């Protein structure tokens, strides 16, 4: 803490330093005329106590586990429990993925994270004409409850937490998970995990699309309402900035658009007359950890502070559990290069450190081969070890929020927060996120940032080692390949399920879902009943598509 | 200060309410959290852990006493640290080839590893050298080897660091002779000899002579270089090896600075003016796994040295008070098992060195625990530095 009268001395000192600096740069010029973060935020050469002079410790920083949670959401943070090491994985059929899950758990992973293949993500079965060439490629194929049972075979669902990256058909996969647990003798109050279930960022960035915005939100609110009553430990939405960032957004845009999405969901739930302090504690978040180290730390700290304020001040929520922004982090896929793949280990390492110094609750570290294909076992192993070295060897988890008070980190946290509020106000002016998306506002902002970044890379203004600087050949690395037999097996299993199940009952359930969708009852119980009879994912999604219509990305530039 | 008292009270309140409520349900992972130097980490630091009224005195500004925030006013905005990969193996020809490879890959300085016979003062044909020639570094017997080693590398354009101690004076002489043959004057050459014999007695063991004559040679070098080779770092006072030998971070800094005090005293004792030679003293530290501790170590070392030079030796020039240092990531942290994990460790350590304000850096290769590094492994190690420099955008 610096006393007010001391700032005069500080300013004098800084003036002296600036003279030294000018003298030095007249001999050796600075590397650049302008220094900016990877998101193009301009940064100063030196930060001093003056840059955080107006920072009110109690209002803006506070204590871990207390409003505004800048220093972390738990009072003990990593002194109590380390973050969950949760490696996103899914490949081929449910058998192969089940094997990979077991491999990772054996090597110390602490939570599961399912990657589904594109047909599942989009609400198509493996035998759909839309699924041609895609089965098992980018994740695991799950068509029916049968696949879900195999996926978690031998993994006790009362003992692990599972995160599922699934959006348009999130409620169906959750239903399958609930029934798969039921068959293991685990009831729905015991299971815990997360469905991504965040359609707004799909419209904005990732474009896994099925239904128009309004029915999409209705399905989301259905799951929120249902879980609040019946699956109390389930995280109902993972409000995701990751894909927004990967699509080219800056750190500020990632933060602002994600929180604006969060606001839209909270409003939708309140419109359904749900009690904020019952559903809000189960909203979770998902951020990217990009290569610009301090910017990322500042972003994550600002995120917590902003969400706490939004929940408390904007929505008047009373429970401190509603104010906490809990989040998963994934290191930045886009920062990785196909060239010289081992460089990716270094990138991921720096990014993982930023996530942890930013106070993440769980973390996925990307594998070095991710720009080629689904990771090999060996590559996933190094990625997991990266987290373990970070947790157990570097000592950064041994005190809480160690960078608090750093002039630079605090100043940057403030700056990112201010810029993000500006975006949120703009979105409020446009009438909220759904309307802003309809106008293509966030899409256009992101497209612009992505294009500028590409130009900066192309011109060499920003560096990518091995791509636009220090370009050399590199030895090839092994790449995961899908065995073509997997697709065949998947199709055969689906066929077998369709012939052995009770098709009359399936039809009845689908009809029931149709009526439910046309009305306004909560669809979750109907979906659970349907998947229990081995109704397929697509059969349910087709009903939705018929009732609600489909959505086409407007492709704005 | 009112706010300070409030903060103390609030911290106490937090510990007694929010924290203790939580910890009773979820106990802390360990009873005690401490760094590798057994410094206990508190669970939470706030501004009450800073000393009052001490910014100017303890931190100051980059390029100014006590240099806690860095020795140059521009730091990495002006120039990145020198990326200097320690290498040398087999013959002078092969090492020369490796140097050219590294320079092509964007390395900015050279660093020579000599074989043990060269380090202990035996030629390759001596019976003591049997089985050792070219093993842990390059063999240099005569000027002819040195000429081959730097063949095609203009010595007015690169800076060269030589890890050489007992025989440093001879290798420096050879280097100057090669430069001369290239038409480069002694005042143009830049580089470092390790020349730190005290730590050889303590930790590394490549000493030849007893301490007293060793110190005499060292002060001879100080005196010669200040007049003739003004850009040469006459010594690289090294904590690296002590740390590798098992010391703590605190011990590393303390013993290194104690050795440095001995050199300065010795030079003063032979009649040199502290401000004439001190600016060419350089340091060499280790960078271990404990990220925050390492960063703190580098910053503390700069502050300590500045104070020693100013207050103990009454140096007048700011340049005499600057602790400039090379860093190498910690070889002893690397594991033979699962060698790819070493890429991760080295990345953390390199980041700590950079956040600690190093002037040059060697990053270990992932296979260093196994043998001399392969070209591919060396390249990844160098890329680690380049990614931190260019992509993280410090």
């Amino acid at each position: 803490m610096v006393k007010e009268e001391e700032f005069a001395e500080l300013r004098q000192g800084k003036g002296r330093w600036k003279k030294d600096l000018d003298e030095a740069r007249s001999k050796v010029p600075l590397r650049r005329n302008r220094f900016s973060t990877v998101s193009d935020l301009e940064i100063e050469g030196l930060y001093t106590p003056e840059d955080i002079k107006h920072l009110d410790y109690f209002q803006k920083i506070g204590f871990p586990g207390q409003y505004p949670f800048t220093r972390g959401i738990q009072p003990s943070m990593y002194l109590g429990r380390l973050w969950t090491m949760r490696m996103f994985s899914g490949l081929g059929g449910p058998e192969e993925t089940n094997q990979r899950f077991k491999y990772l758990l054996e090597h110390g992973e602490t939570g599961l994270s399912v990657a589904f293949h594109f047909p599942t993500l989009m609400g198509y079965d493996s035998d759909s004409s839309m699924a041609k060439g895609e089965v098992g490629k980018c994740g695991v194929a799950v068509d029916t409850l049968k696949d879900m049972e195999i996926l978690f075979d031998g993994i006790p669902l009362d003992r692990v937490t599972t995160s599922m990256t699934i959006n348009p058909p999130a409620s169906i996969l959750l239903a399958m998970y609930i029934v798969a647990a039921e068959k293991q003798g685990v009831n729905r109050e015991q299971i815990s995990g997360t469905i991504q279930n965040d359609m707004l960022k799909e419209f904005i960035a990732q474009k896994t699309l099925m239904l128009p915005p309004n029915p999409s939100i209705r399905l989301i609110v259905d799951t929120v309402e249902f879980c609040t009553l019946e699956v109390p430990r389930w995280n109902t939405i993972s409000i995701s900035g990751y894909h927004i960032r990967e699509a080219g957004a800056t750190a500020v845009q990632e933060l602002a658009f994600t929180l604006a999405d969060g606001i839209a969901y909270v409003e939708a739930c309140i419109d359904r007359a749900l009690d904020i302090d019952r559903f809000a504690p189960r909203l979770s978040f998902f951020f990217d950890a990009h290569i610009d180290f301090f910017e990322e730390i500042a972003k994550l700290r600002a995120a917590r502070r902003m969400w706490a304020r939004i929940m408390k001040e904007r929505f008047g929520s009373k429970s401190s559990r509603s104010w906490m922004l809990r989040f998963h982090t994934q290191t930045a896929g886009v920062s990785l290069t196909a060239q010289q793949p081992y460089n990716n280990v270094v990138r991921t390492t720096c990014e993982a450190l930023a996530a942890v110094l930013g106070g993440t609750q769980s973390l996925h570290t990307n594998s070095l081969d991710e720009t080629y294909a689904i990771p090999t076992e060996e590559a996933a192993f190094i990625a997991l070890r990266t987290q373990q070295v970070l947790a157990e060897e570097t000592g950064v988890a041994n005190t809480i929020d160690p960078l608090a008070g750093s002039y630079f980190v605090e100043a940057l946290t403030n700056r990112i927060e201010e810029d993000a509020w500006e975006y949120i106000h703009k979105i409020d002016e446009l009438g909220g996120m759904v309307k802003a998306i309809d106008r293509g506002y966030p899409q256009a902002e992101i497209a612009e940032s992505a294009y500028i970044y590409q130009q900066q890379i192309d011109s060499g203004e920003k560096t990518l080692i091995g791509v636009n600087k220090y370009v050399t050949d590199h030895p090839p690395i092994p790449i995961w390949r899908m065995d073509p037999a997997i697709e065949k097996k998947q199709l055969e299993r689906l066929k077998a399920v369709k012939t052995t199940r009770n098709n009359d009952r399936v039809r009845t359930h689908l009809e029931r879902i149709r009526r439910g969708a046309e009305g306004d009852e909560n669809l979750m119980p109907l979906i659970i009943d349907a998947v229990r009879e081995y109704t397929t994912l697509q059969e349910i999604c087709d009903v939705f598509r018929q009732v609600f219509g489909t959505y086409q990305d407007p492709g704005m530039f | 200060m009112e706010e300070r008292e409030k903060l103390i009270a609030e911290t106490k309140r937090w510990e007694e309410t929010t924290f203790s409520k939580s910890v009773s349900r979820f106990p802390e992972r360990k009873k005690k959290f401490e760094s590798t130097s057994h410094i206990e980490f508190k669970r939470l630091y706030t501004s009450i852990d800073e000393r009052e009224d001490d910014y100017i005195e303890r931190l100051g500004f980059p390029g100014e006493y006590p240099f806690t925030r860095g020795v140059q006013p521009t730091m990495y905005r002006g120039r990145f640290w020198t990326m200097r990969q320690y290498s040398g193996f087999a013959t002078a020809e092969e090492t020369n080839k490796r140097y050219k490879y590294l320079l092509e890959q964007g390395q900015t300085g050279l660093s020579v590893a000599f074989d043990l016979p060269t380090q202990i003062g035996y030629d390759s044909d001596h019976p003591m050298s049997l089985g050792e020639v070219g093993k842990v570094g390059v063999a240099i017997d005569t000027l002819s080897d040195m000429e081959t080693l730097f063949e095609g590398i203009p010595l007015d354009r690169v800076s060269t660091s030589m890890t050489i101690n007992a025989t440093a004076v001879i290798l420096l002489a050879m280097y100057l002779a090669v430069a001369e043959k290239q038409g480069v004057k002694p005042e143009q050459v830049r580089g470092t000899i390790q020349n730190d014999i005290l730590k050889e007695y303590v930790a590394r063991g490549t000493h030849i002579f007893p301490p007293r004559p060793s110190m005499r040679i060292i002060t001879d070098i100080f005196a010669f270089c200040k007049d003739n080779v003004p850009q040469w770092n006459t010594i690289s006072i090294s904590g690296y090896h002590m740390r590798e030998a098992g010391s703590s971070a605190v011990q590393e800094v303390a013993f290194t600075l104690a050795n440095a005090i001995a050199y300065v005293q010795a030079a003063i004792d032979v009649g040199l003016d502290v401000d004439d030679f001190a600016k060419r003293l350089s340091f060499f530290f280790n960078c271990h796994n404990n990220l925050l501790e390492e960063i703190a170590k580098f910053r503390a070392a700069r502050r300590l040295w500045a104070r020693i030079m100013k207050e103990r030796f009454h140096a007048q020039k700011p340049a005499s008070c600057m602790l400039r240092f090379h860093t190498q990531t910690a070889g002893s942290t690397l594991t033979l098992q699962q060698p790819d994990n070493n890429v991760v460790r080295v990345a953390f350590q390199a980041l700590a060195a950079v956040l600690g304000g190093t002037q040059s850096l060697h990053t270990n290769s992932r296979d260093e625990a196994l043998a001399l590094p392969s070209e591919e492994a060396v390249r990844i190690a160098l890329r680690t530095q380049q990614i931190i420099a260019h992509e993280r955008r410090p």
Partner: protein
Amino acid sequence: MSPKRKIRILIAKPGLDGHDRGARVIARGFRDAGFEVIYTGLHQTPEQIVATAIQEDVDVIGLSALSGAHDYLFPRITELLREEGADDITVIGGGIIPEEDIPELNKAGVKAIFTPGTRIEEAVAWVKGHVKLRG
């Protein structure tokens, strides 16, 4: 070749993968290089892409795929072009495509593959250098 000819390029995303950052950046890049870019949006079937290419009389089709399904989708598109007698249209591709898949794709008639890290200029220069304008 008439000086008035403008190169028309179709940028298309076949399959279910919705990651359109690359496709959109490259579309803008080609526009800024003076091309007319037809953008079809996401989730296109090979049939849609080929029909579009024909109706729009493009010189080039640029495909983007990040899902790993390129090994099926790209060759299917070149096959359909041949069936329609439109294989004079140059097909190029980009995305997450392992080096070792490239020879197979070339054999199927995909003239060039641009893997991650390609500069916009490079792709533009390739098209300018390799696409012979008709007429």
